[in-house]
């Protein structure tokens, strides 16, 4: 589940980099929301898989959220080069995830609330 959410988040970041919206703000929402959803799924996976001690995926997605949020609410210029690097790192993260043996993922990724 978290892998598909990851690809959705990367697609939203791709779209952001393609559009490079002139006015910051709401245009970043899709990427921010999808990354947050992915993050929540990773949290659930962590909580429901006590044996899984590797936090690196969660840490990397959290770091990505910081960069995207910094673009959504920038101080001065939007950090486009850093956002491009984030996309690259998220690709690498998903490749690493696929390379790892599957682990029990707990209940569900539906952690966002109404």
């Amino acid at each position, binding site marked *: 589940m978290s892998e598909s959410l990851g690809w959705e988040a990367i697609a939203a970041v791709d779209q952001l980099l393609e559009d490079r919206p002139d006015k910051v703000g709401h245009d970043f929402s899709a990427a921010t*929301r999808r990354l947050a959803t992915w993050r929540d799924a990773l949290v659930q996976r962590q909580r429901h898989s006590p044996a899984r001690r590797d936090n690196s995926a969660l840490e990397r997605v959290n770091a990505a959220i910081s960069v995207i*949020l910094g*673009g959504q*609410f*920038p*101080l001065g210029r939007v950090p486009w080069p850093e956002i491009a690097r984030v996309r690259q790192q998220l690709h690498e993260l998903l490749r690493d995830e696929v390379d790892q043996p599957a682990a029990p993922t707990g209940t569900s990724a539906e952690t966002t*609330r109404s």
Partner: protein
Amino acid sequence: MALWDLANADCIVVMGSNIAENHPVAFRFVTEAQQRGAVVVHVDPRFTRTSAIADIHAPIRSGTDIAFLGGVIRYILANDLWFREFAMAFTNIATIIEDSYRDAEDNGGVFSGFDAKNGSYATDSWQYQGEVLASPLAEHVVTAEGVAQTTGLPPPTDPTLQHPRCVYQIMRHHYERYTPEMVERVTGCPQNNFLRICEALTRNSGRERTSAFCYAVGWTHHAHGVQIIRAASIIQGLLGNIGRPGGGMMALRGHCSIQGSTDIPTLYNMLPTYLPQPNAYLPHKTFREFLAAETVPTGWWHNFPAYMVSLLKAWYGAHAQPANEFGYNHLPKLAGDHSQLPMTLAMVEGVVKGQFVLGQNPVVGAVNSELVQRGLAKLDWLVVRDFAMTETANFWQKGSLIQSGELAPSDIATEVFFFPAAMAAEKEGTMTNTSRLVQWHDKVCDPPGDNRSELWFIYHLGRRLKQLYAVSAEPRDAAILALTWTYPVSGDAAEPDAAAVLREINGYTVADRKQVTSYQALKDDGSTACGGWMYAGVFPAQHDNRARSRRPDGPGGRGSHQGWAFAWPDNRRTLYNRASADLEGRPWSERKRMMWWDAAQRKWAGTDTPDFVPTKAPDMRPDWSKHPEGMDALGGDDPFIMEADGKCQLFVPSGLKDGPLPTHYEPVESPVANPMYPEQFNPAAKLWPRPGNAIHAPQDPNYPYVLTTYRLTELHCGGVSTRVMPHTAELQPEAFVEISVELAQELGIANLDWTVLSTARGEIEVKALVTQRLRPFLIDGKLVHEVGMPWVFGWEGYARGAIANVLLAIHGDPNTSIHTTKALTCAVRKGRLLPSAKAVAHV
């Protein structure tokens, strides 16, 4: 300036404040000045109790303050009424600006350097010719290349003021169109009223007389709020009303230690006492790089490394060593704007998982209340601490969205922890507010039951976190483990010792743990620790708490009352007080004596602590052949020591994000087109339009009226503390909206009729108070109505009513990210909300 120094003013202009009702204690000094003959002016859209006492009341349309103040600047310059000796010596009026500078007058309403794509400015063209004047605050560095630079020479000037790009000529050109006619056309203030104020201000400024401005959030809460304050500062610089008795800019701070919460900040972009927070996108990767980038070559801020190292020593103690850069990497780095408004939106996006709310009631006090509630509903957990139930703590049960039926409590999974808090008299500690006055208050009695102080909560939370992470080897937990957290506790509740915290903020020598007596003792080698350099001296010995001192000057005394509490820095009551003396160090006049150069003693003397190097003679000049740094680069005639060039900044080369000179832009929401520029509103304003936070277009016919909000004397701050008290609640029993007689007639509304106020953010119903205290304005030939509503009501307590902030939008000033509460647009109609659309329960 000190509050009591207002009594020494010859003219007081209250603008952006209703001082009589919101700062009644401070207002006694205004009335004292008036009794001594001072002229009191109130510039405000509403006629309030301040207006009733004032000699002149000038109503202006909300949000047009810069047009008014720009008109005053033009009046001063055009009539050559500025205090020439003061301004020529102490301001940058003669400094020459870069060739590439283009003024908003000649550049379509924006200054040179504007990037329309990002809505931000590069400041290169605003600089002094051939130099870059760096701002000491990291967040103010708009461009990454904004590292401090200097040519090692004084800034270029033209003392004849003929150079077309000297500040004087730039200002004359910039404000040329701010005529009395234009002031009336933009603000609605009649010309004769405006001119009376200009005459009063200029007549009461100069060698023998001084004038003061008093302001509060009526200036700050705009998308161009910082520039409003700047405009008044320019007036005061031109008229010589800074650093002198009865002269200055009186920032009337909020009651609940608001000044303290910026000094020892709850702000995201500052470390204690205005040190910059490191930024991930600036050259701040290592401590060495950070200090190199942020240390200003000249002026007092050159001492930044000593303050920064001492802060890290106070926080991380033995874990802060030269080998680990004094723990610099424990500090989080800014990645963007993490202030309250963006973080509210981030909550709505689902990014934020939990929130602590201490000393706040954001469902009532934060703009766009329903969006705030939507954000709270997305959290996993919410901690609220207060001594009575607040709207923030029970939003899930009684909130606007629950009342309207949009959400049910069962839809909200946020786990709310409501902690009982101690009241002020049930705990000891300090309050820091107007005048930078740090005042200690003792505990009168124990709080009842499980109520605890904020200090207790934070201390024990930190202690438990340290226990939880004790075995962690994760780098991200290192900051918590390294933190010094050794405050003594006492009593059954294990209450931490607040005096111990203040001692740490004051600072001490590491080797023998002796209190430092002043910030001059702080070092950059790790031998001193200090939690906030500006507070050094508040606790200069183990048992000497100067904040607790209560010794006022008697009749015939110095009048600075330095024995009453502690004013940072260095118990100094008037900042930049070197400016109270002329170039040679003599008081500008006997009547306005404050500081003077004592040639026999070779030091500055006077009624206050000098805000200057005490032994620097007035005729000292920097030896530029030696490439001076720090204070050595400022002469004995450079009073504004926190500025890199020691001058009052009439024109600001660095440090502002929306232009070097204040310019009239309309509020983001306005019923009129900007009569002065093609740019409708501040082009650098922080806008975050999104569903639930739509912004009205200029002149939107659906929202034709100006809306302003304000407090009430009888209901304190967010209201809960006084709404739950019967004796204060009965004084203001329910919410209301003030509507002019003219608008009421137009809409068929009678006094006490129900009305519905609406914006694109929400709707509320509230009773009308039809009053002559508000009058319509004639703006550019069009009648504009303004309505006003107190924002202090909610659904808790005895005095209840609609939350005005349901109507407001989230957008911010580009410099501070502060919200706009004083000038928006709305619709008004007679009647009540449809049951399904009720936003607030009037129980």
